[in-house]
């Protein structure tokens, strides 16, 4: 029974350990697989993300330029209304008005142009027909956005609007315009992460307007010329066509071993192209950092999970063992209880015939092994008159008599093993101290028994015998004690004790 329990317990532990190990291995394998899958898909993600990211950046900056243009146009309209209402009658008043308006509306180089293409600014008046292409026509019919390459490599965005009906100092005026230095626009659009992400403005023919580096393509260089040797002919043709037609697009190119992603988008109304470039290895680096961070997190999670599982398994094991032990103890207790119940006489509370048999067996083993040779006595006790009491006074009185007899025996043989082996028969085994005091105790109990005859109390006949070297088993001693008990019974009868006879 115990072996079965141990086997079951070991099986449970083994299963728990193997199961936990298996779960851990599966967890690790899945994590490694997921990690490798993530790395392998990063390349694809980089291309997609960088294109999306750059397209968004290009579009945003293109819109920013467009908003700048629209804002300036609106300010120019306001400025025109102010000037129209100014009743200007001299060049000095006109210059003052232009200066005030320019300052008030934060306009760059704000100027009016009369029908003879004479340009009026805050400080100068000059003939400007050769300086601004939009003045080549006699009349300006609509808003004009043009790019001017100034002598000295300054590039300006020129915004002009017609000034229908404007007459100052008797002269009809045909246009007003502002000039915005493209460097100022570049500063407005400058990327915060310059060094990894670049932007530049280009003309349709690829000329650099913003004077900014586009990664390996230095400021001032023509993007179409510079990319020609770094991309396929088909890609270059598409790039050139997109620039010419003002279409957005993107491409990747390898420059000095570094993969670059380039996105471009037209800036509305200007004929410009906004180009954004990012080193792809920067994205890779960022992805790698994120990936490594995720891996680290995964590793920590795995470790925590493993530790938790180990802890949990240990606690589970301990709890299981504790429960098993408790169950075992409970079962043992039950067993003891059952055993006790099986070996105990329910009426008197002393051990019964079954217990005596086990006891007898153990003693016999010791006798046979030579371990026990002497200093053991067997006392056989028999209650006198039990049948009469049962027959005349009922079984309750009989039971009381048995209890009284048991009490009497137990009171005197405090250092002995008392067994009720029959209805009115008890056996006491004396060893050690009980054996040493046997004579004294026998005398004591016999004396009380004899006194009880007169008192009408319980009378017990006690016969005894000791183990000798010739005895092979305790029953031999029992037989002698039993004979002596019968003799004593006769003696007690003679003294007046009741018997069934």
């Amino acid at each position, binding site marked *: 029974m115990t072996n079965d329990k141990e086997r079951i317990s070991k099986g449970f532990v083994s299963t728990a350990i193997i199961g936990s190990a298996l779960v851990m291995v599966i967890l690790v394998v899945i994590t490694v697989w997921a990690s490798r899958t993530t790395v392998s898909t990063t390349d694809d993600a980089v291309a997609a993300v960088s294109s999306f990211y750059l397209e968004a950046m290009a579009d945003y900056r293109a819109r920013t330029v467009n908003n700048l243009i629209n804002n300036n146009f609106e300010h120019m309209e306001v400025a025109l209304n102010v000037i129209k209402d100014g009743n200007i009658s001299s060049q000095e008043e006109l210059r003052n008005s232009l200066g005030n308006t320019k300052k008030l509306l934060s306009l760059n180089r704000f100027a009016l142009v009369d029908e003879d293409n004479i340009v009026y600014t805050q400080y100068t008046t000059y003939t400007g027909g050769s300086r601004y292409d939009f003045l080549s026509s006699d009349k300006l019919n609509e808003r004009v956005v043009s790019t001017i*390459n100034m002598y*000295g490599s300054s590039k300006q965005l020129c915004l002009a609007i017609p000034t229908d009906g404007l007459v100052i100092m008797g002269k009809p005026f045909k246009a007003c315009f502002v000039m915005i230095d493209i460097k100022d626009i570049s500063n407005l659009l400058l990327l915060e992460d310059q060094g990894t992400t670049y932007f530049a403005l280009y003309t349709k023919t690829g000329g*650099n307007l913003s004077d900014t580096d586009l990664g390996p393509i230095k400021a001032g260089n023509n993007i179409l010329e510079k990319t020609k040797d770094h991309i396929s002919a088909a890609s270059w043709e598409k790039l050139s066509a997109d620039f010419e037609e003002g279409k957005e697009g993107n491409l990747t190119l390898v420059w000095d071993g570094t993969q670059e992603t380039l996105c471009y988008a037209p800036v509305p109304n200007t004929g410009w192209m906004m180009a954004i470039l990012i080193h792809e290895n920067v994205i890779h680096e960022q992805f790698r950092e994120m990936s490594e961070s995720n891996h680290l997190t995964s590793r920590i999670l795995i470790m925590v999970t493993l530790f938790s599982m180990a802890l949990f398994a240990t606690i589970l094991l301990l709890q299981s063992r504790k429960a098993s032990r408790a169950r075992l103890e409970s079962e043992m207790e039950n067993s003891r209880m059952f055993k006790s119940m099986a070996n105990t006489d329910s009426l008197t509370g002393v051990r019964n015939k079954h217990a005596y048999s086990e006891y007898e067996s153990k003693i016999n083993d010791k006798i046979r092994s030579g371990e026990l040779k002497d200093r053991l006595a067997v006392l056989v006790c028999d209650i006198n008159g039990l049948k009469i009491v049962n027959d005349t006074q009922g079984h309750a009185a009989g039971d009381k008599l048995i209890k009284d007899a048991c009490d009497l025996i137990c009171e005197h043989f405090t250092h002995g093993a008392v067994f009720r082996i029959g209805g009115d028969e008890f056996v006491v085994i004396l060893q050690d101290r009980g054996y040493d005091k046997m004579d004294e105790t026998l005398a004591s109990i016999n004396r009380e028994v004899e006194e009880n005859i007169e008192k009408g109390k319980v009378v017990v006949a006690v016969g005894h015998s000791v183990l000798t070297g010739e005895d092979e088993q305790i029953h031999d001693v029992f037989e002698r004690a039993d004979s002596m008990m019968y003799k004593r019974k006769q003696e007690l009868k003679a003294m007046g004790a009741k018997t069934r006879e």
Partner: protein
Amino acid sequence: MKMVRKTAFFLTAVIAFILPLSSCSEKVSVQPVPVEEKSTNSVIGAVDFAHELDSYVPKKDTYNFYFTYKIVHPWWDAVALGMEEAQRQYLEKGITITYEYMAPEAASAEDQKDRLARVKNADYDIIGVDVADEEIISPVIDEMIDEGCKVMTFSSSDAAKGCKRIAYVGNTHNYQDGADLTQALCEKLDYKGKVAILVGSVGAPCHEDRARGAKDTLAKYPDMETVAVEYDMDSIENAYNLTLDILDKTPDLAGIICCNMSNPVGAARAITERGSDTVIVGMDHDEEALRYLNDGVIYCLGVQDCFSIGFDTLQVAVKIADGNLPGDLYPELTNEITTIIYKEDAAQMLELLYGDIL
């Protein structure tokens, strides 16, 4: 008073007559790059955009100038940018300079004469003139000076020798520029062949001086034959048509000497159209001309430092307006350089002037 002026004028005229041309050029430093050098380094310093005002402290807070030049043309727009930079720097110092910078759509000495007549009595501290025709305009300037106007000349054309204008800022070596360009052409053609000369406006001193320099240089080589001398009146279209005409008449034309900014552009267009091998030498920094130079259609160009001309003109004008005469504060002739550049220099010059490499 009139007698004094007449005497002065007479003496000036005599001196101008007696002194050879070289005596005037001795005052200035003409710095064309020797033809033999043909170095790409010639672009460096050809145009100086990094000007700062000198230490002179103007006497007034406000100035009002009037400048007139020959014709509405990008060359003078470049000069205007130099002026605007000087004006901006003065403004930073608290000195406000207003000015007019005016020209006719077509070169015309009469138009310039009319302009000067209109403005001479107006409230201008200085009147600056880029002389359209020295014979017509020089007397007008003298008259204005006599009437108390402060008149200076600027850009590429000074007034006639002996004119009373107070000072001149600009190209003082047009004759030499013409001679240098022609010398380069002759070398290229191995000193033989038929050549044509395109000039700008009739009477414009700078153009005429360059044409004279060209003619004198050609005269030194007997195998060089001048087949035509034409004026385009500072029009590219005219230069183009004139070149086509010359090519029709002289299919074996070996070279063209262009004396102004529009000449080489028109000539290059015509030469390209015809697929001719005619060698072009010319003046100035027109973007289209520079691209033709880069393509090898034009052999060489003489590039003037227009920005410096404009900047120095305004600076000298302030000093004249304050009553200072030529001397320690400024010279009577402020020379600005001309640099001859070749195909190898074209891209760098384009980037310098227009910020765009081909």
